[in-house]
């Protein structure tokens, strides 16, 4: 268990800058999820903490010790790879004990540690099997077991669930969450799946093009995004983001906006900073679940023409265009099933709309 600190860390491969200089502190016992689209540098960031990549600049501290130039094994970190990376010619037992053996632990002690970890992960019956005799979920458990036995200061996970099928992913997600609770260890977890990020993290780092876009708890990122990028990345289906014209402010922390694609005129959109200078053009954002379906005769803000209805059983979503990019998405109550071509009316839940500059910065 330890505080992990990145100070002004950057990374370039040749002339390509993959990580811009950034600072990040992962507190003791925290479950930090680094999330972002593929190619945003999140794996590189994790590999630098692991010691598999050396930062081009900056320092990495674990527990106050500068580990920037140290070998991976001298950092007190353990890593779970996306591809598991088990030693195929060794049994589960040998896979888990290899790191302990390298650390010079006596055999009896190794055996004890492996058994303890195997019990935690329900792998006791598989200790003498080879990885190829295991299912995907079991393999990933062995990979996790290999990290647990080493009792590292920091656990690193590099997209550990993306090779598993959907059901197993949910199961392993819960197991990892449980593990974190039981061990109370510091964990850094990389994923491109915002559901994993939301469910596992105590804090989330949203990374974009090698820059930190926003750091915060899952609910902070969901309720108070700094940018259109974060707003669009967190939440499913993603937030509706449409162009808007700002007509002015009401002096009470709202901007008056026209949103042609939603048919809104003079809508009072809440501002994060009531004193911010208002641009003429802006981006208006509202989440599908904040569009409240209204019955005939109730006051409504917008009217959408139904094009596609997506019924997931627990939720129903309405799309007003066939392509997701051009579409406004709204959540419907269960049981409401408009036909294509129907006009459906919605109210925007109070205080749940967001305003961004055209460059994507929250106002």
């Amino acid at each position: 268990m330890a505080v992990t600190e990145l100070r002004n860390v950057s990374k370039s491969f040749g002339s390509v800058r993959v990580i811009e200089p950034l600072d990040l502190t992962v507190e003791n016992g925290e479950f930090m999820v680094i999330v972002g689209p593929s190619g945003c540098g999140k794996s590189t960031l994790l590999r630098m903490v692991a010691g598999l990549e050396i930062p081009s600049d900056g320092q990495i501290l674990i527990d106050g010790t500068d580990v920037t130039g140290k070998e991976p094994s001298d950092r007190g970190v353990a890593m779970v790879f996306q591809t598991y990376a088990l030693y195929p010619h060794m049994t589960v037992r040998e896979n888990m004990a290899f790191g302990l053996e390298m650390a010079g632990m006596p055999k009896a002690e190794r055996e004890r540690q492996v058994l303890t970890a195997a019990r935690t992960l329900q792998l006791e019956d598989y200790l003498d099997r080879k990885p190829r005799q295991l299912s995907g979920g079991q393999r990933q458990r062995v990979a996790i077991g290999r990290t647990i036995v080493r009792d590292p200061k920091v656990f690193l996970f590099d997209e550990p669930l993306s090779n598993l099928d959907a059901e197993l992913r949910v199961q392993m997600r819960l197991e990892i969450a449980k593990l974190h609770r039981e061990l109370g260890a510091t964990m850094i977890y990389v994923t491109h799946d915002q559901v994993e990020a939301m469910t596992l993290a105590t804090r989330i780092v949203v990374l974009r093009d090698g820059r930190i876009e926003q750091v915060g708890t899952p609910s902070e990122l969901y309720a108070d995004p700094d940018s259109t990028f974060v707003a669009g990345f967190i939440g499913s289906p993603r937030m509706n983001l449409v162009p808007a014209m700002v007509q002015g402010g009401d002096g009470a922390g709202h901007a008056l906006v026209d949103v042609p694609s939603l048919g809104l005129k003079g809508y009072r959109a809440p501002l994060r900073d009531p004193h911010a200078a208002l641009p003429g053009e802006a981006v208006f954002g509202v989440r599908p679940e904040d569009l409240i379906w209204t019955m005939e005769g109730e006051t409504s803000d917008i009217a959408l023409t139904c094009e596609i209805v997506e019924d997931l059983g627990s939720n129903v979503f309405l799309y007003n265009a066939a392509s997701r990019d051009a579409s406004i998405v709204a959540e419907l109550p269960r049981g409401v099933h408009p036909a294509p071509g129907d006009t459906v009316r919605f109210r925007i839940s109070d205080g749940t709309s967001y305003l961004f500059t055209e460059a994507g910065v929250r106002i």
Partner: protein
Amino acid sequence: MKRTLGWNLALAAGLGFFVALVGLPFWWVVSGSFKLPREIIARVPTMFPQSFTWQHYDKLLSSSDYGTYLVNSLFVSGLSAVLTLLLAIPAGYAFFRLEFRGRETWYRVILLAYAFPSIVVLIPLFTMFAKAGLVDTRLALIIVNVAFALPFAIWMLRSFFGSIPREIEEAARLDGGPPLTVLRRIMIPLTAPGIAAVAIFAFVTSWTEYVFASVMILSDAKRTIPVGFSGIIGQYQVDWGLLLAGASLAILPVVIVFALIGRWFVTGLTEGAVK
């Protein structure tokens, strides 16, 4: 996909043809070595021996130095194969893993060793070996064999190392394995088929090497099979039975090596490691 009967027959015929093409000479040699001399030179050759005798083997082992040649060959080829592996495994791993200046260039340059026919380097090598006092020693043959097997062995092994998923090695680094331990405990077991292939390659090239063995070795007691055996034939006119028996015995060690090492040729060795 379901094959028709005609297609199956055609496949069987094709396979049969190639099996015969490869197998018939062996059959001819091995079965012939057990025939009586008059059957060997009979006007109408027999596919299956009508007679059976050990006399050729008896004669080969008792009245010639074949046994000595065999031991020499085993010594030279075995040691050549082992030395090739001992040098090629670390070299292949270094070419694969370490980053150093001119790595790619060096990697290509080593194959230049095969640009020269061995006959071209024979005379300069002989002079050098003479100065070093190595002429007429089996060590000279081992040096030459290793030198010729090494470039190809390094090439093969590097690509075998390259086929191991990077994450496995990284996991080993995180587990704290020093490079040589990772090589020994992780990389070598995983590249066993490649190493076996290289071992067989080195053994067989040494086993059949003729040119250097005929020039570098002067005394009969140090000859290897290819050279010594050719002497036997000249020595007692062409004794076909002796020739066939000698050829059969010369094949035997290679077959044994294949049988012993061949079991390492298992597929799917890294299965279950990743994904």
